[in-house]
């Protein structure tokens, strides 16, 4: 409870910073002037540019943290996350096919739907490939296969793209960015992200019981097959919709739950909300970094930042797992 409150305060602070910092940086008086509408130029900047960007960072970061926590609870392993399972890459593939084929513009509702279908297919394929109760190595390898396949498909779509400018646009979009997003993007993604999140939060107590393994969970009255389906669909909705408006933003789903897990006593149920809040905080921070780091040409993309920070973090996790295994005497 105290943890959630602290994270909510941090989120509010970061949200305010995200509203204040940019090409035109604002102080508190500037923020107030803009929000209350006394300065029209600032109002335009805040409501049309910064607010949608901030809201998307919160929604997408939060859904990634939540999805990571739920997936980790489902497969009972801290190395699980949507990106390692190829969900974002598959969502991106579906969206890219849609854009490059000219069937949908970047502002169409078909985009989040395609993204979700792509993510859903990848998670279903993953569970089918790896089977029930698969060891994590099989899950990770299957995720790698799916990611590579989706990346190859995306490359193919770019390769065959009839219009080089469209290809460039798609390539940039793929890097993952919250820049220049409008309320239309928020409206496209938010309903699906929220529905997916509700579905995931609903599984909280089942995920906790699942920590005893599937057989025991079934014996305690958990409908394990239904929980698995709900998590898969919830992750696909949340991640797919997020990817379709902001491109692929990696590894927040891995990092966010990990940061808060010891603070909730490793309880997979109590982990969900703090993981969502810290995911939102992380993406806000990454998006602030993007705005603050000076570059000579194109500004940094937020997906690049999260991947750069997330990959070493994953490495640390793997090393720690290795030590734990060595202690247990496993090969």
């Amino acid at each position: 409870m105290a943890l959630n409150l602290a994270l909510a305060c941090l989120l509010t602070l970061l949200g305010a910073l995200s509203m204040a910092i940019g090409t035109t940086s604002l102080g508190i008086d500037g923020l107030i002037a803009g929000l209350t509408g006394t300065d029209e130029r600032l109002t335009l900047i805040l409501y049309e540019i910064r607010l949608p960007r901030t809201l998307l960072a919160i929604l997408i970061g939060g859904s990634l943290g939540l999805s990571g926590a739920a997936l980790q609870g489902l497969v009972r392993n801290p190395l699980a996350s949507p990106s390692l399972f190829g969900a974002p890459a598959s969502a991106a593939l579906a969206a890219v096919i849609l854009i490059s084929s000219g069937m949908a513009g970047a502002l169409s509702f078909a985009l989040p739907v395609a993204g979700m279908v792509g993510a859903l297919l990848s998670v279903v394929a993953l569970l089918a490939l790896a089977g029930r109760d698969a060891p994590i190595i099989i899950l990770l390898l299957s995720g790698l296969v799916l990611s590579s396949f989706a990346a190859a498909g995306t490359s193919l779509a770019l390769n065959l793209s009839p219009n080089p400018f469209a290809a460039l646009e798609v390539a940039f979009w793929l890097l993952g960015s919250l820049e220049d997003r409008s309320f239309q993007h928020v409206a496209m993604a938010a309903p699906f992200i929220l529905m997916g999140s509700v579905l995931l939060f609903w599984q909280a107590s089942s995920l906790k019981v699942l920590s005893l393994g599937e057989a025991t969970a079934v014996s305690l009255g958990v409908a394990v097959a239904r929980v698995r389906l709900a998590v898969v669909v919830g992750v696909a909705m949340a991640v797919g919709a997020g990817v379709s408006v902001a491109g692929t933003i990696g590894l927040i789903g891995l990092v966010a739950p990990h940061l808060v897990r010891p603070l909730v006593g490793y309880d997979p149920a109590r982990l969900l909300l703090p993981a969502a809040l810290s995911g939102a905080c992380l993406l806000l921070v990454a998006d602030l970094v993007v705005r603050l780091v000076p570059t000579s040409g194109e500004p940094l993309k937020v997906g690049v930042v999260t991947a750069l920070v997330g990959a070493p973090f994953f490495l640390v996790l793997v090393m720690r797992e290795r030590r734990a295994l060595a202690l247990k005497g496993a090969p």
Partner: protein
Amino acid sequence: MNQLEAHGLGVAIGEKTLLHPTDLVLRSGELTVLIGPNGAGKSTLAKALVGLVPAEGQVLVNGVRLAEKPARDRARTIAYLPQGQAHSWPLDVENVVGLGRYPHGQTQTDETVERVLTDLGLLELRHRAVTTLSGGEQMRVSLARALAVDADFLVADEPLASLDPHHQFAILDRLQAVTQAEGSSPTGILVVIHDLRLATRYADRIWLLHEGRLVADGHPEKVLTSDHVQRVFDVATTDETVERGGSTIKVALPAAISS
């Protein structure tokens, strides 16, 4: 008086029959011990009774088909402790035991959780992370979790594995007390164990399983005959007198590998 009956309960995977159709009754007020050599189908039978593997035949509790009960209702009817219970996260002992309350609609520490923590001597460990405990302590936590369900029946698959002799006695004393106490549950308990001497000492009834078939079902004296034990376990036996609830009984126990 609760009664769990299996009619023609059988399990097959493809062509391979793991458990031949069997009729069984697990009675309340009884501690039933399931014995048999490795691969006899003990775990399969345990899972089939609880409804965790696809099985032919049916399991009835007081005349109602177990499979037709809603999931949580079924969970409150029969609790299950798997062989080698895994703990995926370092949850507190108290939290793990609290998971046994899930079929009752919550997983908080309540009176039942307090009671089983006390009964199994786990009060001192209640705030420890379960994964940091020794194998024997983890086993007691798992059993506590299964008892916290407060179900009418309990099926425990090798709850004595990795326990020292003191705790083996302590656990069986506890389970025996639970079956005999008025108004407490579970009242009918099935445990899978390998130690035939312990089985003799504690079992109200022994089920002897061999190659997926129930070879014998009854009082230890009737089941643990030299013929049964030699044939099923492929060992030589000696006749021994085992103390049991104030009196003694004669059974055949393994003495050496059969020549």
